[in-house]
């Protein structure tokens, strides 16, 4: 006999007992909503997770720039000989791919954790310490999915497009100097190369949108093209100002020119322009028009799945690191630790070489022949420990940039396409031209140029914050 048939089991309404336990309060307490503190002991876990992941990134760099050359040298291939270059040239793309993959995985995880933090939720939690292996599983899932091509697509271009986007990120990676001498390709015209390689990715997005025979994709591709011509000009001009000021296009030389003063101070305007235009190049939130998910479903990658989509995804998140890394190269002193005229953070090895008696004793205890080999590999300029310290500062600056972009992504809504173009053509391009002019001025008259540039740049930031470049202003009722 069910409860509905049993008349006696049904109580009159007045006798129904309302539960008096306060599960509403309990639940709020459980979620930590009352004091808005979603995590109690997440920090340590997070530090461990990030340490693991940054360790991995560092490991790849050490492998690429220290271990492999050392192995080749032990195989009697001297540096900068023909066969060394051939073998290292074959190996370096593999290593670059490894670095890109690691960095992309880290960035995806960082974004998810950071957004979780901002949005009062946890983010990935279960796989690995603090969820640090979650993206690895995600990547494995993408790889294991079916390689699917829709029927009506332009197949060659459809296949080529994600490769183009990925290669673009790959090429950007090739010229970035992580530490003195730690660079895959020390190109003389590095700045020009970066502009060219970055634009290639825009082509990939445009072609992807066009080839997939999908209306949302087409609109996404066209928006990407409109966006590309808008942000690429101020971006290039701001890089040009750096080249003018540094007197070189080689990225390593640009970094070396910033040993005493980061270019972000004398070249404040190009720095601001690069920050904004870089955001547009990343296709991140205020400028994520090509893949605006609430408008165009997934925009230019609507029809992609499996590893084809994975290429877009990895490239996007690799660029999310590479653009802040380039920001560090051009404006934030690259691999140099933060230094202001009265206070220097010295490199650990400088202490070691100068005053540490322990290390001096160590130095004395070994024979001269031995010293020249392992001492050099560790402590001399170009050695392992020096490289690690320099690249640590470099990765840190990149990570700071990534967090800055993520912060913006977590906060802002999306621009309309004409507002993006308005901002770029009417705001950023004139500003970057002023920046170029002031770069030349500050080369000759440092105080005047730097003063004006900081003034103009601050005014521009203020205007952006007030919404000055957007066509419609708030109307007062």
């Amino acid at each position, binding site marked *: 006999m069910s409860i509905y048939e049993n008349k006696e089991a049904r109580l009159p309404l007045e006798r129904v007992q309302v539960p008096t336990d306060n599960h*509403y309060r309990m639940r709020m307490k459980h979620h930590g*909503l009352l004091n808005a503190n979603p995590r109690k002991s997440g920090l340590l876990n997070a530090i461990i997770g990030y340490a693991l992941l940054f360790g991995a990134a560092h490991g790849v760099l050490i492998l690429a720039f220290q271990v492999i050359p050392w192995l080749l040298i032990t195989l009697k291939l001297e540096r900068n000989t023909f066969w060394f270059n051939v073998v290292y040239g074959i190996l370096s793309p593999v290593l670059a791919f490894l670095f890109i993959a690691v960095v992309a995985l880290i960035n995806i995880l960082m974004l998810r954790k950071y957004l979780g933090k*901002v*949005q009062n939720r946890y983010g990935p939690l279960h796989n690995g310490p603090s969820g640090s292996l979650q993206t690895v599983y995600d990547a494995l899932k993408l790889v294991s999915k079916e390689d699917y091509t829709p029927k009506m697509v332009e197949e060659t271009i459809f296949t080529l497009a994600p490769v183009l986007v990925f290669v673009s990120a790959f090429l950007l990676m090739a010229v970035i100097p992580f530490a003195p001498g730690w660079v895959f390709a020390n190109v003389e015209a590095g700045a020009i190369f970066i502009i060219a390689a970055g634009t290639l990715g825009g082509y990939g997005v445009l072609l992807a949108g066009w080839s997939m025979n999908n209306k949302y994709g*087409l609109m996404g591709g066209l928006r990407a093209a409109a966006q590309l011509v808008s942000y690429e000009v101020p971006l290039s001009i701001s890089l040009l100002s750096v080249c003018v000021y540094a007197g070189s296009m080689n990225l390593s030389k640009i970094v070396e020119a910033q040993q005493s003063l980061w270019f972000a101070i004398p070249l404040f305007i190009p720095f601001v322009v690069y920050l904004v235009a870089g955001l547009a190049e990343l296709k991140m939130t205020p400028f994520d028009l090509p893949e605006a998910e609430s408008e165009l479903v997934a925009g230019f990658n609507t029809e992609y799945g499996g590893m084809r989509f994975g290429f877009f995804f990895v490239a996007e998140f690799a660029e999310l690191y590479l653009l802040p890394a380039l920001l560090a190269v051009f404006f934030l002193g690259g691999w140099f630790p933060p230094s202001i005229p009265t206070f220097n953070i010295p490199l650990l090895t400088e202490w070691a070489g100068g005053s540490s008696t322990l290390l001096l004793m160590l130095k004395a205890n070994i024979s001269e022949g031995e010293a020249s080999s392992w001492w050099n590999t560790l402590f001399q300029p170009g050695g392992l420990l020096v490289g690690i310290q320099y690249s640590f500062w470099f990765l840190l600056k990149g990570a700071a940039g990534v967090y800055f972009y993520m912060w913006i992504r977590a906060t802002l809504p999306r*621009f309309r396409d004409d507002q993006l173009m308005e901002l770029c053509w009417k705001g950023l391009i004139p500003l970057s031209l002023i920046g170029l002019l002031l770069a030349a001025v500050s080369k000759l008259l440092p105080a005047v140029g730097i003063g004006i540039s900081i003034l103009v740049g601050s005014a521009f930031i203020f205007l952006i914050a007030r919404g000055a470049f957007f066509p419609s202003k708030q109307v007062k009722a």
Partner: protein
Amino acid sequence: MTAVADKPNNARNTSGSVMNPTSVERVAGRSDEMLLNLGPQHPATHGVLRVLMGVDGERVTKAIPHIGYLHRNHEKLEEVRTYTQCIPYTDRMDYVSGMQNELPLCLAVEEMLGIEVPERAKYIRTILFELSRIASHMVWIGTYMLDLGAITPFLYAFRDREMILDIIEETAGARLLPNYFTYGGIRRDHHPRMMQDILEFLTWFEKKLPEYEALTIDAPVFQARTVGVGVLDPQVALNHGVTGPNLRGSGINWDLRKDDPYDAYPHLDFEVCVEYGCDAYSRSRARFREFRESIKLIRQAIAQCPKAGAVLPKLPRLKPVAGMERYRAVEISRGQLGVHIVADGSEKPWRSKHRSPSFCTLQALADMAVGSKFSDAIAILGSIDIVLGEIDR
């Protein structure tokens, strides 16, 4: 194409069949128009709405809403249920503010049968009604900001909405579809801690409101995306029967809580939030001001609510006289929700017609969206805050 050309020229009509467009008009001097099938599966349609959009590049040339994907026959089902059994169906129409939907039916039947609602029940109804309005507007903030590309406000809004739903769950037993109001009052007295919990929530929420405003209506990018977008002329709005914050955002002072008060509203002091910009920004502002008005209303109602007393009188047999009919409308979060009940002397309504606010609002979509950018069309669709369950019923 020829058959189409003979048709009277309707600016908003497609060529070809409306449901299955086959060809596209080509206008001299213009690029090709592309027909875009927005929905029924699309992230920005708030359910299963299909909007047939003509886009010329980024410019919207047509916006024809096709509805019915969520039709569940509620009005017909109510005709074969007793009056008491009808109430749960009303919950399921506007599922975002379920509790508010029960009220017009209750009011109509109470008036038909001359049932006197106890004061205490009236106040409790009003409190929960306004609480549901806050919860519903929270969903609007979240989804609208998702439409505009910001994800964070969504999670903030749902965090706080969850607190309201917990309060409702504690008292009514269900979060979204409470089935709590009934003819003559409310089903049972509220949870002993409800008033205290609500006051606590209001304190929390008042603290959080400036945060929401900073992320939404005060943010420059939000203003850039909404000011001057989706202008709804007051006359057009009236012609379409648009109500609620959408009408008040077009500068028309019309609020049934003031103009045709029910329950405890005559005893409460509040302001009708009218904004004069007629655009998506004004509609947003109107909703944000309603948050503060709702808080004010709830505080007053809790203060005035009798501390003890019956919440449900002895009911007569729910069997209105044949031929009796009643239309009763209330101001729910989306506008004017009306119920027209016709009795035939049995315990089941002969006809139950719901006048849903979102249905009327959606008809004004084309007037707002045509001529704007595609991104703006999404911003407009979000700004009118429709719920498909209520449109299709």
